[in-house]
């Protein structure tokens, strides 16, 4: 009796979690296709908010900027993170453990605090606000994710493969390119997607570090909502969610926790 009761409770619990997680998103996506500006029912299908969105240069600019920043962040964070992971895997050096441990707090520290610290720091060194600061901030946030994911993949790598390659005359770069990188490529792709997602969805740090005329998409959405809510925001949000979810699903597929390697 209690067994079935617990099983039912578990299912109910799961259903509630999924409901509260996805219902608001579905409502928002649903409303982005509704003709009424004031979310009135009955539902009347329309693409007019997407059309309006297409003509809104402010939002398009912000979206372009966001994608651009995310791509630059992804490239820098993936290269640095992969290099760091390989170095941590290959070499023994003083302070290695300390470095590895220090990678984790940035993931746990609230972005609000990280953002504040970065703002103070960038003003301190004279860089101030602006796209360069945003990119540096995003790279710093994304780097630990890349290192964690790539290192997890490297942990399954057999180091004697590198030794075998060296015994056949391959120098360090050839070993890396021909033996190590092919093995960890799935981890690198997953890490890159995480980096893209961290940057593209980033609000707090971007809000602190971007200049008013130079907002990223999440920042623009936030400021637009404060001025007044239009279904255009629903439309752009729907697009972001679709893109982000696609990116995360691919990332999960390529990293180990997505199941079969």
């Amino acid at each position: 009796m209690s067994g079935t009761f617990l099983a039912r409770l578990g299912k109910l619990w799961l259903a509630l979690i999924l409901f509260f997680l996805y219902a608001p998103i579905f409502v928002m996506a649903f409303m982005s296709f509704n003709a009424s500006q004031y979310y009135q029912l009955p539902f009347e299908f329309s693409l007019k908010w997407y059309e309006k969105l297409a003509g809104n240069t402010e939002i398009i600019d912000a979206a372009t900027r966001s994608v651009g920043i995310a791509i630059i962040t992804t490239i820098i964070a993936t290269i640095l993170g992969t290099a760091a992971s390989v170095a941590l895997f290959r070499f023994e050096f003083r302070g290695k453990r300390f470095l590895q441990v220090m990678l984790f707090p940035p993931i746990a520290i609230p972005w609000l605090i990280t953002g504040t610290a970065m703002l103070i720091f960038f003003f301190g060194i004279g860089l101030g606000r602006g796209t360069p600061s945003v990119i540096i901030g995003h790279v710093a946030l994304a780097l630990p994710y890349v290192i964690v994911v790539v290192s997890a993949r490297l942990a399954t790598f057999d180091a004697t493969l590198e030794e075998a390659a060296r015994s056949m005359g391959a120098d360090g770069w050839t070993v890396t390119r021909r033996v190590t990188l092919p093995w960890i490529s799935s981890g690198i792709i997953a890490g890159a997607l995480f980096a893209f997602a961290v940057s593209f969805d980033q609000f707090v740090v971007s809000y602190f570090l971007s200049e008013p005329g130079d907002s990223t998409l999440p920042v623009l959405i936030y400021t637009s909502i404060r001025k007044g809510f239009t279904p255009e925001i629903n439309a752009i949000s729907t697009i972001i969610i679709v893109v982000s979810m696609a990116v995360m699903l691919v990332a999960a597929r390529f990293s180990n926790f997505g199941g079969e390697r």
Partner: protein
Amino acid sequence: MAEVSVQNITKSFGSLKALNDVTMDFPDGGFFALLGPSGSGKTTLLRTIAGFIFADSGSIRIGDEFVENTPVEKRDIGMMFQNYALFPNMTVADNIGFGLRVRKVGATEEKRRIGEALELVQLGQHGDRKPHQLSGGQRQRVALARAIVTNPRVLLLDEPLSALDKALRVDMQFELKRIQREIGITTVFVTHDQEEALTLSDKIGILRDGKMIQAGPPREVYNNPVDLFTAAFLGEANILSDISGDGADIRTPANLPAGGTLAVRPENITISTSKPGEDAISTCQAVLERRVFAGAMATCILRNNGTDIKVISRDQDIPPNIAEGDQLWLSWPVEKTLSISGS
């Protein structure tokens, strides 16, 4: 092909002396075994010759070139790893061709030499397979082909056969020897299997606690072990110090060093029911404790005043109708007595 010479190599890891003043010569074209228990330094020595480990002091010469400061990729060696270390993302042919591509020999030449190497290890049809599609023995052959395809100056094998089951291992021992003979490459291999070392090599180096205890041809090391460790590690040895009792007559060979110990290998002892008549033999009496039949051969454990003596002989050479508890005579020729320095 080249001669390898290791002189006075010392290597410490922290407070552990992994190699302590090790010297050994590996003449051109020979097959050499480094033998020792785990932790003896045999793998460290092999990896030092390969160039994965740099010695603290001492010299390593391959051919005419001193290589102790040369990194592994510049030493022109071939190495086979215990787990084979085949590249899982590459085909068999690409695995074998890796070293050729690094050396940029050209596509035609590369293809020809991969084909030759595959033929040599009798895997002609398997070039397109991936390593995970091969059996253990086939993987081992690929690893061997990959190690020799670049015509390295020396071939280094790290416990090459330990991952195979017994029957396959014996096959591969002969195969390895055949290939080594065929290409005449100087070969050094690490093993903890004394039988493998005796079977395959022209010269054995026995290591213990980072020291080279003894180096020499298998028969010489087997018949003249320098100490009890070597005597017991390479085969078995009955220590004769405590043999006593009625009829005990242990002859001492002329070459027994001062403070030395006498021992005799189990296969050199003859069992008889009465006192043997010959002159130049040692004798003693012992009680049969156990007799283990193993087909052609039999092992007997006998006891003399609290000392167990092991005898291995052809089953048909053991007197018939003897039973456990019988008092028997043991004898062995003086020249088969091992004189071992130290105790």
